[in-house]
């Protein structure tokens, strides 16, 4: 249980492979015997995947946005 409290906040870093080797080994070993943390990792992966899926929208700005931006910068430079 104490180990679960240590492991669970690190699961996101663990699943993205951004923990140190020693922490990774410790978490992997703990996960093998802990159903609770296995479920937590599974839920985290599902949520992450749903969020990334939701965020990956295919929207683009209008073609003339660059012109508007450059125009705005030009005007700004003139006034300063």
């Amino acid at each position, binding site marked *: 249980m104490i180990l679960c409290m240590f492991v669970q*906040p690190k699961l*996101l*870093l663990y699943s*993205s492979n*951004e923990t140190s080797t020693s922490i990774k080994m410790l978490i992997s070993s703990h996960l093998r015997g802990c159903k609770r943390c296995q479920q937590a990792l599974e*839920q*985290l992966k*599902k*949520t*992450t995947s*749903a*969020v*990334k899926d*939701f*965020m*990956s*929208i295919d*929207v*683009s*700005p*209008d073609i003339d*946005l*660059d012109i*508007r*931006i*450059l125009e*705005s*910068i030009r005007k*700004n430079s003139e006034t300063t």
Partner: protein
Amino acid sequence: MMDIRVKNLKDEELAAQAAQGTIACFEELLSRYRTPVFRYCYRMSGSKEDAEDWTQECFVKIYNNLGKYNPERRFSPWLYRIVHNYGVSVIRVKQSHSYQLVPDQDLAEYPAGSKTDAVDVLEKKLRSEALAEAVDQLSPTLKSALIIWALEDITFKELGEILNTPLPTAAARVRRALIQLRQQFMKTEDKDTI
């Protein structure tokens, strides 16, 4: 000839030359980052019109601050830090008002198919709306961190650079956002969906 040379430059070199007044270099940076910045603004603001205005504001800020950029450091985190700070500050102001969710495609926009297709599309749409609503409930800081991380597919080390926080803090923010989303989302959805 100039175009080819500019296109071959790294972001950091472009930014350094843009800071010296070479507008072609800034235009190249604009073409590289316009769409990602717009997508961030779209998810933060909830509308295409706002996203375009925000993108414009962000690039004006980026341009005006180029003199402070240190070319020895990576350009992308520096740019996203400006974008993040802008997004968070605008959302904070906006938070007192309710604003529109990002509209998703209407069912009518999907090609006709079997009944099962229609049900799948409807379920996907409902899930997407519930998720959009849940994302909007997050604090500006958590929302911005989550959007940058999810959209850009970056590491927590890189996210930490953008947010100007240590790696564990960046990861903790995203984790907190994911937990809140899950809790919020489960109020309206089947437990097993997310």
